[in-house]
């Protein structure tokens, strides 16, 4: 269970929050979404990645991708200010043969990325629903 985001940039922490709250997992990881993610999921049979999304959809919208079976579209997930994002890392891993057999990627559409701690109401609701969805699966 990998949450990607910056805890001090508002809704960018959505992925981190989901990773912290989900119970049906063996290992939690927090990451800032660079190529090093490949090392984080090395050896795992099933991987879930949750990141912030900025596609222009309404805040709180959850995007779902079965990343092993379909390429991730560009322009959905949030980009990193320091490095490459989750989308680039997954496409790099696919070419290097380092993509897990089972990898689901969730993107939660953000409302604000302004500096500060705490999620917006729409994103908080989406986080709760996604946590239940993952725990039920």
């Amino acid at each position: 269970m990998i949450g990607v985001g910056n805890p001090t940039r508002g809704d960018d922490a959505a992925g981190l929050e989901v990773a912290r709250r989900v119970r049906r997992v063996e290992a939690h990881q927090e990451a800032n979404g660079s190529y090093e993610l490949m090392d984080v999921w090395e050896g795992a049979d099933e991987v879930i990645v949750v990141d912030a999304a900025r596609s222009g959809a309404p805040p709180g919208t959850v995007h779902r991708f079965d990343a092993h079976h379909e390429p991730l579209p560009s322009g959905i997930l949030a980009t990193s200010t320091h490095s490459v994002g989750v989308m680039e890392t997954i496409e790099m891993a696919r070419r290097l043969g380092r993509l897990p057999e089972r990898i689901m990627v969730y993107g939660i559409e953000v409302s604000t990325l302004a500096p500060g701690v705490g999620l917006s109401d729409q994103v908080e609701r989406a986080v709760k629903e996604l946590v239940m969805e993952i725990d039920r699966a």
Partner: protein
Amino acid sequence: MPMSVEREIAVDYLARVEGEGAMYLKLKGDEVLDLRFKIFEPPRFFEAFLRGRRFSEAPDITARICGICPIAYQTSACNAMESAGGVQLTGGLRALRRLIYCGEWVESHALHVYFLHAPDFLGYDNAIAMAADFPEQVQMGLRLKKIGNQIMSLIGGREIHPINIRVGGFYRVPTKKELETLVPDLEWALEAAVATTRWVSGLPFPEFERDYEFVALQHPDEYAIHEGRIVSNRGLDISVDEWGDHFEESHVSWSNALHARRKGGGAYHLGPMARYSLNFEKLTPMARKAAEEAGLGSRCNNPFRSIVVRAVEIAFACEEALRLIDGYTQPDAPSIEVEPRDVVGHGASEAPRGTLYHRYALDSGGLITEAHIVPPTSQNQLSIEDDLRAYVVGRTQLTDDQLQWQLEQAIRCYDPCISCATHFLDLTVERE
């Protein structure tokens, strides 16, 4: 294309550079009417908000200027404050400052060589496209970058914007045992860097050389990274605090980064080629051997070959890191006292992209009253524009697409860090 046709090539957003930049070229036949390397990353006002802060805050604040080369900012800031306070790091503290900087060179150079620059020579739009055909190389680049990051994390607390560096040294110093955990990876990295040098030396390089004034730090005993005198191949040899007597900055309307030039002179060239050409004799043995095998000679004037020089510098940084770890003795205290008052401090160090100069004026309470930060990319802007102007000559028969692709490559040779420089890329070519 008829000679009299005016053409304009505009790249509105340059790829594979750090930050926001553009390029504009206007041609009439073979004549360059206008050429601008534009940095439009918004101004960041770091110098302004350093005013009123304590001298001790400068390393952590300026680290935020760049996520790729924070150590450069922290080191130049520390150097300035320590020089202002009349102290100098020695022994284990000096070794750690140099060692963490080696980590940054490995991490930053591996990123540029494998992920930003190599795709240019192999005809790919990006490293992901390149990875399908060159998986071994890409994996090697990933592991090299990771090893650089490990050095930074072990000494600095984390790899991006490390938190363990302070004026006078560190908050905590590692034990020798902790540093020794890096050795097996560094031994692999040194071999990998030598293999990288061999690989990139076989890439197809355009025939293009210029007679640069190279400027870099120089040190009598070592390949300068974190301290030294500022020297050039045209006789400049000054201490860091004389920077302002020999260099000047000016604002141009098309760039948010100040243009720097030699006083009474013109453009100068900073970065791996400058360091290599000025300090070749000081390279460590394996790095020097790798350079010789790559056919580099003792200087390099072809900016496209900078990728080979960067690979040599990765080998150097790994070899130097191994030497530093081997000779390390844990210091008794993690830092030494520094209390600069009512003084101006100057500091410089060799960021992966070139010399980074800082100057701070401090009041009687140790508060910063004035800050001046001169990043390598802003200093390289004139040299980049001169390169582009020279490169176009004899190549105007190329199509706009070909010209644009090659000129973008010429810019990427500098590993420009536009976010740092702002205070950058989109290409426009206009033909008359």
